[in-house]
């Protein structure tokens, strides 16, 4: 009798625990199979959540890259307008010098943009994988004109994982003259883009009054730079789309794992409550009958 009531008491405790914690498996011995499945699922879930974090970091980097690209587009189109206007017959050398100083300012702006850092991590966005140091340095002559822009970065890009086996690259190398690999933001030998040198020669041609070169070679070269930046904008858009898709995939994976974990180790509250009621009734009945049996003995009836 006592062992039966003890068994019922233990069942009651276990059910109560299941209902209050929401878990039917808590220790390895409760259900080793379910425990292993749950631990595996928790690990997968944690990995998916990590992909989510990676994606958030990459999205912010991609946004930073995008805003630089927009500004560069503006700079290139301003330089193109200058080249067109300088080629018109009315421009004299004074006007050309004005234009030249505008171009110098544009170069300085462009260098500053190309030296942008990721606001979260402080990495230089356009130094390739040598992103710990400022990638571009401009040199000027005594008159304040820019004579050259040196690149200290490299042409590599980092791959970051956004799903198992799926990697994207958000950072863009500033310069790639290798003829293969990721196209450089400023200089890309594959397409002939070389923004800084093209702007410098525009500046120099304006200063020397060589308007035919301004409207000819320089305008043509700037077109290549415009195309290159446009390509980068499109690439960036593509990366952002992939990031968004991967982000929603990671969160839906994580959600479905939550469901799986709950199915394996979570308590079915309705079922547990029904069992709890049944067990409680049985327990009370057992206590009642025990107390009645214990009261009765022959001794009670002997006068």
């Amino acid at each position, binding site marked *: 009798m006592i062992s039966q009531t003890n068994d019922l008491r233990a069942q009651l405790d276990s059910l109560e625990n299941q209902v209050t914690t929401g878990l039917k498996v808590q220790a390895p011995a409760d259900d080793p199979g379910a425990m*292993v499945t749950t631990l595996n699922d*928790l690990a997968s879930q*944690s*990995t998916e959540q990590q992909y989510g974090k990676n994606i958030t970091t990459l999205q912010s980097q991609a946004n930073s890259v995008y805003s630089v690209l927009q500004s560069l587009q503006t700079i290139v189109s301003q330089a193109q307008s200058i080249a067109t206007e300088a080629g018109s017959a009315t421009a004299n050398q004074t006007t050309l010098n004005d234009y030249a100083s505008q171009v110098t300012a544009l170069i300085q702006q462009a260098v500053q943009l190309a030296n942008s850092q990721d606001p979260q*991590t402080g990495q230089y966005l356009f*130094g390739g*994988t*040598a992103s710990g140091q400022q990638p571009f340095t401009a040199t000027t002559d005594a008159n304040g004109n820019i004579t050259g822009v040196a690149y200290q970065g490299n042409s*590599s890009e980092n791959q970051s*994982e956004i799903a198992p086996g799926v990697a994207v690259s958000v950072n863009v190398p500033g310069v790639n003259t290798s003829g293969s690999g990721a196209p450089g933001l400023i200089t890309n030998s594959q397409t002939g883009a070389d923004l800084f040198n093209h702007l410098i020669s525009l500046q120099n041609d304006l200063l020397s009054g060589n308007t035919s070169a301004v409207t000819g070679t320089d305008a043509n070269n700037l077109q290549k730079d415009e195309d290159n930046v446009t390509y980068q904008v499109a690439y960036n858009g593509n990366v952002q789309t992939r990031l968004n898709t991967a982000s929603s995939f990671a969160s839906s994976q994580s959600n479905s794992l939550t469901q799986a974990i709950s199915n394996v180790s979570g308590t079915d509250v309705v079922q547990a409550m029904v069992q709890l009621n049944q067990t409680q009734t049985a327990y009370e009945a057992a206590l009642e009958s025990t107390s009645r049996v214990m009261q009765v003995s022959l001794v009670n009836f002997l006068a």
Partner: protein
Amino acid sequence: MLGLLGTLNLAGQSLQTQMTGVSVAGQNLANVNTAGYTRQTVDIQTSPDIMTNLGLQGTGAEAVSIQQAVDALLNGQIQGQQSVNGYWNAQQSGLQSAQNDLNEFLSSTGSSSSSNSTTSSGVSTLLTNFFNDFQSVATSPTSIPARQTLISDAQTLASALNQMNAGLSQEKTSLNTSLSNDVNSANQLLSGIASLNQQISAAEFGGGNANDLLDEQQKDLNNLAQLTDISTTSGADGTVNVSIDGQALVSGSKVLDTLQTYDAGNGSLQVQTATGGVSLTLTGGSMKGTIDARDGALATLQNSVNTLASSLITQVNSIYSGGYSLAGTTGASFFTGSDASDIAVNSALVNDPSSFQASGSATATGDNTIALELADLGGAPQSNLQNETFSNSFDQTVGTFGDSLQTANNQVSNQTAVTNMLTNQRSSISGVSVDQEMTNLLTFQQAYEASAELVSTINKMLGDTLAMKSGA
């Protein structure tokens, strides 16, 4: 013809006989709550007849012996089950503590309806976090906070492995202690059984029944069986000889040999005979349960954890040492130590997160090649972990251990049921029923009153007889 005096004698004897019945019922009632007590009954037989000229005439009744209501077969079964009980109880308690050292429990921080907050407490989560942190560093290779998080999580993982290993070693020591305690208890029981043998043999020498001593003997045998499996042979004089694994330890009133523990190497105690030095192969009882828990599930768990830790150290270091820090240095180790007992994060790295070697190139500090390789290591099957990933291999270890403890838990509950059943059977035969003893008491009391009535009747008749003479 018995005659008046003969009948008076008969009545007196009857009074004694019924009195014995009352005292036996009283003894039973007094022991209604005594563990291991066997119900006693008085064996009443008619006294020898005498030849008279009317033929054979009865001379009343006498109590010839007080018997135990005992089922030897059932007692043997209970004794055997004690060994099985002891075995699984010892396994259960040893593994239960190891489960705490393993510290892999699920918990839910939210309400029961939203179980998305299920978390696990142990190394499984720490391993996943550790490899995830490499992902964070790979995504932001020059970020110092990402490196700090990685190093701090790696330290947590290392100290969790240290603690688990220390806990399991401690558990092994306490199982050895518990084995030694069991051996001491067994030796005391052996000498107790031998001295009971002597008393029983002395008591039964005159043809008596050493009932209560036999109960004590059975109790000691059951207790001994709980510690280790024993073979017993009973002698005609109520004595019992005890042997373990074929080694005779108690013969009659003599303890032939006792038990002692010895170190069979690597600090794992085993049991042997103290004088003979014969190592014993135990097959049941808490001693065997303790040994099996220690050398079975516990050892497997500790080995798996150590294999995991040493693979982790080797694999992480072999990738990591080829990387370059933010300052361009290379060749350092990430982890120091060789297994779970001494795994630690390289202290130079702890002091300077920038020295974490994430880059694959001395000149490109922002490169993430090595960090990414380390992150991918988390998902790579390891040849010395049965081609499982670190995390899956540990989860599997948890599962294997859980299986062992679950088996022990189930066996304990099954054994409890079996033992309860046998104990109930024994109670129905040997147990004291208050109702029955009260009925016996009444019966003997009535018979005693009747016999007393007989005495007073004979007394009156004797008086009448004497009055006849004096009145004449």
